[in-house]
């Protein structure tokens, strides 16, 4: 490029940049990215909300879901959702939340059935996600709800009925964050407390992984 052409090119470039940033400042756009077509979005838009938005047409019952569960889920979650080893339990725990050992399951803890549909559809079976058909997802969701005594075996789960499933812990959540919930302000610097006792020691428990660090 000759020197004069270079200068001319730069000048044009500067004008363009100025135009672009002016546009951006005015809340306008950089013109980057492509319009996403409905077909493109549909392939990835897999979420479902408590009000049913996002649930696709289709249906299934717990009776239909039993076979799916036994084949695709039971190796980790157990035949009745009781779990194998350290995999998550999917049943039980009712009335345990205020105890010293809360057992948080679909039945005892989850506030919405839509979450179960959404999660199974996107993430289960673990290691083969998004492999269940829509009907299989309705059926196996119904089966997990059935294992928790939340629907009958022949209850037809679909986009209309699912948002209406009564979840026992629906009102168990506090949506407003009440923190800070401990004293704030100028911290105490001297003579802040009386006698101090050691309540817990970690060494005797001996649960820290052995390794070069310990």
């Amino acid at each position: 490029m000759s020197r004069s052409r270079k200068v001319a090119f730069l000048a044009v470039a500067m004008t363009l940049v100025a135009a672009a940033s002016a546009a951006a400042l005015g809340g306008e756009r950089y013109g980057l990215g492509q319009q996403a077509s409905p077909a493109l979005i549909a392939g990835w838009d897999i979420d479902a909300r408590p009000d049913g938005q996002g649930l696709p047409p289709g249906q299934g019952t717990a009776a239909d879901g039993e076979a799916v569960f036994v084949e695709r889920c039971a190796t980790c979650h157990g035949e009745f959702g009781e779990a194998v080893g350290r995999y998550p339990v999917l049943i039980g725990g009712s009335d345990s939340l205020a105890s010293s050992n809360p057992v948080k399951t679909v039945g005892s803890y989850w506030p919405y059935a839509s979450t179960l549909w959404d999660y199974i559809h996107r993430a289960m079976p673990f290691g083969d996600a998004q492999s269940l058909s829509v009907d299989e997802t309705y059926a196996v969701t119904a089966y997990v709800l059935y294992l928790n005594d939340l629907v009958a075996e022949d209850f037809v789960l679909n986009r209309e009925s699912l948002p209406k499933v009564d979840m026992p812990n629906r009102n168990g959540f506090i949506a407003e964050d009440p923190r800070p919930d401990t004293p704030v302000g100028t911290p105490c610097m001297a003579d802040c407390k009386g006698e101090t006792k050691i309540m817990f020691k970690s060494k005797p428990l001996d649960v820290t992984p052995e390794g070069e660090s310990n």
Partner: protein
Amino acid sequence: MGPGVGRRAFISGGAALTAGLAAGAAGGRIVRAESAAGQPPNVPDWSRYLGAGVDAVPYGAPSAHESEVVRRTVEWLTATPESSVNFTPLQDLHGFVTPNGLCFERHHGGVAEVDPADHRLVIHGLVDKPLVFTMDDLKRFPPVSRFYFLECAANGGMEWRGAQLNSCQYTHGMVHCVQWTGVPLKTLLDEAGLKPKAKWLLAEGADAAGMTRSVPLHKALDDCLVAYSQNGERLRPEQGYPLRLLVPGWEGNMWIKWLRRIEVGDMPWHTREETSKYTDVMANGKARQFTWVMDAKSVITDPCPENPMRHKGYHPITGLAWSGRGAIKQVDVSLDGGKNWHTARLDTPVLSKCLTRFYLDWNWTGEEVLLESRAMDETGYVQPSIVELRRVRGRNSIYHNNSIQTWLVGANGEVENVQIS
């Protein structure tokens, strides 16, 4: 004690004292054998023979002598390593920046191996024009670089019911701090144009967990970034390569890795990660939901169980403090279990929503000490004790344990994780 004369005097007498203290003993990491051949007055091999040439290691790696400085996991915590966590070795780090290879990992479906040429970010829902971006598109937006800490809401979660893990790495290592580079999320949302009813976003990952979290729009427009770099290089695969959402100061689970989709809506989605998980059960059985901010916290990283006291005399106590509400204003250190406090020196820079390094000069005379640090941030929030936290939240919360850590320094120099009244 001031540094200077006292410190020199100590160093000269140090070797003799070492034998009686925790060096090499249980509780501390192995102390390497020394070899006289490498020390003065001898001339070591490395002063005589040529070393490796350039490019011997095209992507540099730490010295072989630092092989213990690694992330570590607690295998019994989880069913599988693909849905698991490991921990940053805070006890081995200096300053406030975490090296990329030491940033803790938390995955729910393993590390997605994403080809950046095929990666797409889709923005749709309550927008004027749904958009799909390539990585090249995203890098053409005006970039910004920011330091932010990232902490898992479950950091310290094992300690709610009592002192459990005898380690700084395992009790506090689900935090890291790097310099991120990317595009403000607001820029991308403006590009698509928000509809008036927009109030929430759903951010979704491209991994096998399809990780999803609802983010309120006010946060998205405030300081969220969509990042493609950390500490100057492209994101590490385990940190979400090629694209990650940053939600500064808020719990790490929301920082969606392998970010592929943002849907704009008018209510939260109540995904599994914001109902079944990342909700905090109180003593009465009710659970707090949408507890996003990571409150002020601090920990002493030396001494700690991995860094026992090997010498009497001068020792610079050091540690890290951070707050999701802003910048750290003050860190105090106690040697008597919280009865009296001494204000520590903050190393600079002190940045908002970022790890801050602190120091306190100390002269250890060999007595037993209950060592603690307490952070206060610019909003006046003060890090609570575990007793205070339990009083308001019970013991079953799992998440958001930002309590003061107590290290018991024994007369033999060993350091133990304890909880005190």
